């Protein structure tokens, strides 16, 4: 399993880099959250109170090195500090509240987008020269459409004009969270438009990527041979061509996850979805160092985990890596 071990090592290194980057960014950039808070209060604050707040927010004058060690130590205990925006709520609480929504939304949407996009890509390659070629210009266009614009358009059409779907929040006002069918239904109903946004906007990449690899794969001798063997088209298409074409796509899929997550941040903001993306924006707007740091860290780690899962999938799907040789 040297392949996986190596990848794991890499992810650990990357995680460390993300953590450190996270620590450095706020300290390298100018700005002072307390000052901002004071501005928000339109100046009605006592200077003594300002100092006290500063201390409460963990903005210390210790050496950067000491701060870094403290930061790592706190992280190790799962402590991300207190949010300034939601002071005195712990950042970890804010994240714990919002992360499940994002993971659910982005996870499901990405899964759908991957499955549908990959299938369409396979078909587009297989049925070259038929009407399926029409998918390509559409995908090319969608590939370049900003997520939030898709979201806005969907809001306009299905939310405002037709009023088929709710256009904000994660579940209805009248349902209380709990393990009830009503709640689940409401969650699904509310997730519909944001999920469709993510699916639409991220699917194009999958279609185009899969098609290109698939077209190349279709030219491979083993596909020609599979056809010569008199296998059914379906079997040739899926078991021989698609099965191989998926492999290079797994890596690109994993790498595009970061992009999808980025897009979903915008989507969440448009739909006021109570996920981590909305929180990130809130953190940025309020110059909420701890919150921004925490969220960026969590997103990065989530993407890393997803990448590692993709690597696992790769190992399972490709016998060449599973075996201990090249």
């Amino acid at each position, binding site marked *: 399993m*040297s392949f996986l071990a190596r990848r794991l090592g890499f992810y650990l290194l990357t995680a460390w880099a993300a953590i450190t980057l996270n620590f450095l960014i706020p300290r390298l950039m100018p700005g002072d959250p307390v000052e901002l808070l004071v501005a928000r209060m339109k100046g009605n604050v006592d200077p003594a109170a300002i100092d006290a707040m500063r201390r409460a927010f963990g903005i210390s004058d210790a050496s950067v090195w000491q701060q870094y060690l403290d930061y790592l130590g706190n992280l190790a205990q799962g402590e991300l500090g207190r949010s300034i925006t939601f002071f005195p709520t712990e950042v970890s609480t804010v994240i714990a509240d919002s992360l499940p929504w994002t993971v659910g939304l982005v996870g499901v949407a990405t899964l759908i987008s991957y499955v549908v996009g990959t299938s369409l890509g396979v078909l587009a390659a297989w049925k070259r020269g038929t009407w399926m070629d029409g998918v390509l210009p559409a995908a090319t266009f969608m590939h370049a459409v900003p997520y939030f614009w898709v979201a806005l358009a969907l809001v306009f059409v299905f939310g405002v004009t037709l009023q088929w779907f709710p256009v904000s929040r994660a579940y209805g006002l009248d349902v209380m969270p709990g393990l009830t069918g009503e709640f689940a239904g409401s969650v699904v109903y509310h997730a519909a438009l944001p999920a469709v946004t993510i699916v639409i906007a991220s699917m194009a990449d999958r279609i185009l990527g899969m098609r290109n690899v698939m077209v190349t794969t279709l030219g491979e001798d083993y596909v020609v041979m599979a056809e010569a063997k008199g296998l059914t088209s379906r079997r040739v298409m899926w078991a021989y061509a698609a099965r191989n074409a998926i492999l290079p796509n797994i890596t690109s899929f994993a790498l595009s996850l970061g992009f999808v997550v980025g897009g979903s941040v915008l989507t969440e903001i448009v739909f006021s979805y109570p996920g981590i993306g909305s929180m990130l924006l809130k953190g940025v707007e309020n110059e909420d160092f701890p919150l921004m740091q925490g969220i960026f860290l969590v997103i990065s780690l989530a993407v890393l985990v997803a990448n590692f899962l993709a690597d696992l999938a790769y190992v399972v799907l490709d016998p060449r890596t599973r075996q*201990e*040789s*090249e």
Partner: protein
Amino acid sequence: MIVLEGRNLTKHFTAARGPRGRFGKRPPVRAVEDVSIALRAGTVSALVGESGCGKSTVARLLAQVCPATSGEVLLRGEPVRAHRGAAFRDYRRQVQLIFQDPFASLNPFHRVRYHLARPLRIHGHVRSDAHEQELIAELLERVSLTPVEQFMDKLPHELSGGQRQRVAIARALAVRPVALIADEPVSMLDVSIRLGVLRLLEKLADESGLALLYITHDIASARYFAEDITVMYAGRLIESGPSEALTQEARHPYTRLLLDSAPDPDRVTPPEATRHGEPPSLIDPPGGCRFHPRCPVALPVCSGEAPGRTELGEGRWTHCWQAESALTP
């Protein structure tokens, strides 16, 4: 006169990918083991062996494109030590390589002129632009790419395989080397045009006194174009001798197998049908004589210890435990 000589060259690659052994170290690929070879001025020598046996690695070691794990390379009897700087550049000037794939050995972006002008400039052979032009024309003429003007400004993809290989040869000649190593220079070319290129190389060795190493897996062509042949197997040399003698009367069982296996419509009786197995892995080569698992006449000793060189006279030698005894036909 021996121009270029490799002595006890060994090359182990650490594979960039592949399994790791214990302690996370990857076992090396023992691509070349204890190879000694000498090139003489005005002579074509051939290095023959099957695919993957390490021929190209020997070529690269001799050209000092990659450093040897052990052993040394001697140019006119002087060991080459420098790996950078003017001394090394001088070495580069004296020993040149020609690659197997003429489609890959010319940068598709540069014109013929550029390909020839660069080495001329780097090695300070040009005095002026006009002089450069003159030299390039001369080179093209030497490799029979005429009319010269027509070829000078062509891009590689506008040339046929044979023409490209001639450009590659011209480029090698541009630095005015004393030794030329041609690594399977014709194996990518169509049969019908191979001859032209080989004849050109032969002519160059003859006329310019170049020492030429002709690397090939086609032992028949080596018989035609080289004065002597060295046979390689799984990273080791196994036999060497004047080409006619070696092909007509091989002394090592592998050479004989090679000769028997080569297609030959003139053959009267087809060789007996026995399975010979596959060439060994170089990561974990067989102990002793590397050929013993496939050898029809292997003795117990063959698997225990690698045989040393047995001189057979008339410039012939072999590495085989049975060199003198059983093998003489």
